[in-house]
């Protein structure tokens, strides 16, 4: 049987970046994508942070179809009937190429076309069903009746990674470790987006919401401006959805979110053009799969490389960097003609020297910190309530602000021992 060098399963950002970094190595590389084209099964919130991946990507993203450069960051705490928002912008963010909103269907497709120009085969409409094994080593893939033998199989098939699972590298998928993102694309004229978000053309806004948006469940809402559309959605923990009493149908969360006063005017007159959903790994460092085996590497979401930092959610830059580092590992392995577990273990060593594992490790305690219902219900409710009291000038005489503050904090029970202890654990994140 004839072996090619590398089969990459999945044409998302991880798989495509891996292929891109292999393109000039002279190796035979095939990317297999189950959708009609790379990007057609992919969804992001979202935005891509460029600086962490700058030293890895070379010219890979030159000319990429970015939507807007994020220059305005907003976070909102949503109470039941009120909200409190921080609105941040900075000259640095406006000047530097810090982060960009993207739409995956066009972004990934563009990258795959760039790859094909470099002679990499990207085969769409191709679902991989199984792995081929020989003496405990992965030696290729099976799709229907077809078999493709390769020195290395790269599992880049996303959060549900059936390939990493079949390779025995992926931990069982516990509902606690995953969230579901549900999103609408709402089209609006570019000038209206600029006006509503106080930004110029090509500048964008990223807005995260916490609190009433998920009815107290783990998760939040997001809004990202694209050139001529808005990505509006919610993320909710699957375990949280399962445990909530009374239960809520997941899809209704987005509808209620859109009805909020804070959102309604922002999307008014917009035309919904797509409704999507995608799984998100939420376990962080402790949820990573084994990253390599004999003849196989796991990259991107498939490996669990995603990080919910509360203030933002990251995944795509981890996917890109892990894909490129996997490629460097494969190039080394080819030089030594050794594709064993041992040889491919360089991948994990290298990742440990980069932000991919370093950042996940630094924030290893964040999931435990966020595993607290107060963050999604009590705090987002208490702070807007407090501001409401302070800003309200009624018929009665105005009390001292310090008194209002103290009374509110006391009555909200925010200052009890358990909660203060939780606050104190911020030092661990």
């Amino acid at each position: 049987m004839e072996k090619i060098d590398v089969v990459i399963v999945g044409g998302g950002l991880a798989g495509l970046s891996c292929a891109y970094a292999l393109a000039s190595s002279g190796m035979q590389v095939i990317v297999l994508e189950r959708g009609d084209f790379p990007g057609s099964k992919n969804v992001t919130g979202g935005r891509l942070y460029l600086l962490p991946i700058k030293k890895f990507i070379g010219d890979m993203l030159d000319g990429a179809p970015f939507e807007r450069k994020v220059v305005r960051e907003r976070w909102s705490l949503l109470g039941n009937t009120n909200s409190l928002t921080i609105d941040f912008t900075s000259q640095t963010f406006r000047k530097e190429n810090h982060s960009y909103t993207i739409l995956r269907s066009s972004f990934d497709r563009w990258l795959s076309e760039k790859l094909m120009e470099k002679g990499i085969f990207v085969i769409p409409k191709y679902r991989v069903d199984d792995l081929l094994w020989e003496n405990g080593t992965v030696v290729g893939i099976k799709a229907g009746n077809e078999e493709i033998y390769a020195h290395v199989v790269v599992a880049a098939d996303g959060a549900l990674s059936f390939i990493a699972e079949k390779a025995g590298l992926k931990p069982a998928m516990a509902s606690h470790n995953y969230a579901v993102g549900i999103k609408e694309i709402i089209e609006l004229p570019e000038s209206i987006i600029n006006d509503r978000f106080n930004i110029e053309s090509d500048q964008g806004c990223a807005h995260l919401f916490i609190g009433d948006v998920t009815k107290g469940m783990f998760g939040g809402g997001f809004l990202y401006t694209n050139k001529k559309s808005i990505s509006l959605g919610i993320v909710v923990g699957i375990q949280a959805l399962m445990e909530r009493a009374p239960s809520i149908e997941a899809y209704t969360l987005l509808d209620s979110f859109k009805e909020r006063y804070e959102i309604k005017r922002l999307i008014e007159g917009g035309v919904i053009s797509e409704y999507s959903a995608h799984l998100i790994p939420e376990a962080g460092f402790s949820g990573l799969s084994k990253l390599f085996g004999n003849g196989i590497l796991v990259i991107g979401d498939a490996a669990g490389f995603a990080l919910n930092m509360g203030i933002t959610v990251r995944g795509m830059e981890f996917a890109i960097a892990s894909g490129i580092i996997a490629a460097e590992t494969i190039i080394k392995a080819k030089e030594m003609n050794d594709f064993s577990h041992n040889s491919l273990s360089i991948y994990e060593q290298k990742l440990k020297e980069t932000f991919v594992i370093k950042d996940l490790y630094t924030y290893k305690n964040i999931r435990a910190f966020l595993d607290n219902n107060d963050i999604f219900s009590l705090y987002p409710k208490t702070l807007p309530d407090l501001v409401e009291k302070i800003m309200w000038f009624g018929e009665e005489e105005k009390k001292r602000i310090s008194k209002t503050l103290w009374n509110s904090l006391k009555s909200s029970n925010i200052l009890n021992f358990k909660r203060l202890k939780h606050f104190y654990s911020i030092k661990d994140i």
Partner: protein
Amino acid sequence: MKIEEKLALNAFKNDKESHIRIHQDICRKKCKIRYCLYVCPGHLYSFNEDTNEMVVEFAGCLECGTCKVACKEGAIEWVYPKGDYGVQYRYG
């Protein structure tokens, strides 16, 4: 907008054969809560009381896999649709 109308906005290429297999015996015997009914973002699951069967409208599947993750009893056997089928996101 109703959930069915939202799904109708998407580009789907539908297979005749479902990529989601439900083991009805497990649903009937083991599952009390039926998480699939409310975790699915497409609202595609329903329980047919007449036939005593869990039904999934697989043609509108957004392929997120949430039902698979939420089905603690392992009644949902879920694979990706075959190549050339399923949802094709135009924005993503």
